[in-house]
């Protein structure tokens, strides 16, 4: 099929789809008139029952925790897939000499890494109190690790972004989530039951066992993304090194 034929059959269909979507979306209650009940039940239950301030994360890590477990494994599987696909003929190289010369960059870079990682951990820790949680904090921690490449150079990054270190961490993060769920099952409760109901609302210690789930999600996300970044960076750097 030529492009012209393709677009010729596609545009009328797109118009049809547009009509269908407009027809459907006019049936949605007017903007701002959310009728519930799901959301209202959750906001009325989340805080009193679970000592959480952040209703979104009480849904994410407790009420609909199994969704998030699936989501962690989607990330887990995708990173495995990327590693499999990009692990080509090039492999790793030791011949990269892009170490940062400037001491100033190294010092401030190290400080920045510390700061970003701390912010990431903070975002994970207070996930049940303020916006944030395992995913957002995990990405922040991974981007802190990425700064290592900018501040120090590829070799130091490669030493850290090594899969023999990161794979176990990633496995523990993803598997840990499921094992916490299983712990409840072994204790005679349904899978992923939040078993420490206590805790102090508004503090790091809120959320019961969902807090552990949150932390394992954070670990999984951070490790998975560092692997992802490192695979893509290698795609970029290794051929450069070989070319020069």
């Amino acid at each position, binding site marked *: 099929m030529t492009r012209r034929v393709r677009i010729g059959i596609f545009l009328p269909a797109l118009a049809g789809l547009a009509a269908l979507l407009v027809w459907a979306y006019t049936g949605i209650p007017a903007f701002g008139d959310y009728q519930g009940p799901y959301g209202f039940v959750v906001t009325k239950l989340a805080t009193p029952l679970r000592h959480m301030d*952040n209703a*979104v994360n009480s849904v994410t890590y407790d009420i609909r925790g199994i969704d998030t477990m699936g989501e962690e494994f989607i990330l887990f599987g995708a990173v495995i897939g990327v590693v499999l696909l990009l692990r080509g003929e090039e492999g790793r190289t030791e011949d990269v000499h892009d170490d940062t010369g400037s001491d100033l960059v190294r010092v401030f870079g190290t400080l920045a890494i510390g700061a970003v990682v701390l912010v990431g951990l903070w975002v994970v820790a207070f996930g049940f109190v303020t916006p944030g949680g395992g995913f*957002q904090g995990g990405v922040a921690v991974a981007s802190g690790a*990425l700064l290592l490449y900018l501040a120090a150079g590829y070799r130091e990054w490669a030493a850290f972004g090594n899969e023999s270190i990161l794979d176990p961490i990633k496995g523990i993060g993803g598997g840990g989530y499921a094992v916490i769920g299983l712990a409840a099952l072994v204790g005679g409760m349904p899978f992923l039951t939040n078993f420490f109901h206590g805790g102090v609302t508004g503090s790091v210690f809120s959320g019961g066992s969902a807090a552990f789930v949150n932390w394992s999600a954070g670990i999984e996300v951070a490790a998975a*993304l560092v692997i992802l970044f490192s695979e893509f960076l290698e*795609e970029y750097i290794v*051929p450069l090194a070989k070319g020069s």
Partner: protein
Amino acid sequence: MIVATLVPLQAVALALVALGAPAVVLSRDPLKMIVVNGLYGLTLVLMFVIFGAPDVALSMLVVGTVAYPLVVLVAIARVRARSGEEEGEE
């Protein structure tokens, strides 16, 4: 009820998103693409904040400022480098 449920700020954010989407799709130059896509991500972040979804905004922010750009930039750089080599050889 139906009138003016949308505050002006929300309308502005929505308009930005509505303009951003075709801007991403119609930018065919790789580098322009990534800049436009980054801006589109920011308009989404803005919209999430205005719609009362700070958690989602934070997610989009970390994803849009770190993960997307890195991954897409590497892909573009790689494709350019290779194409450059080939042109050089020919």
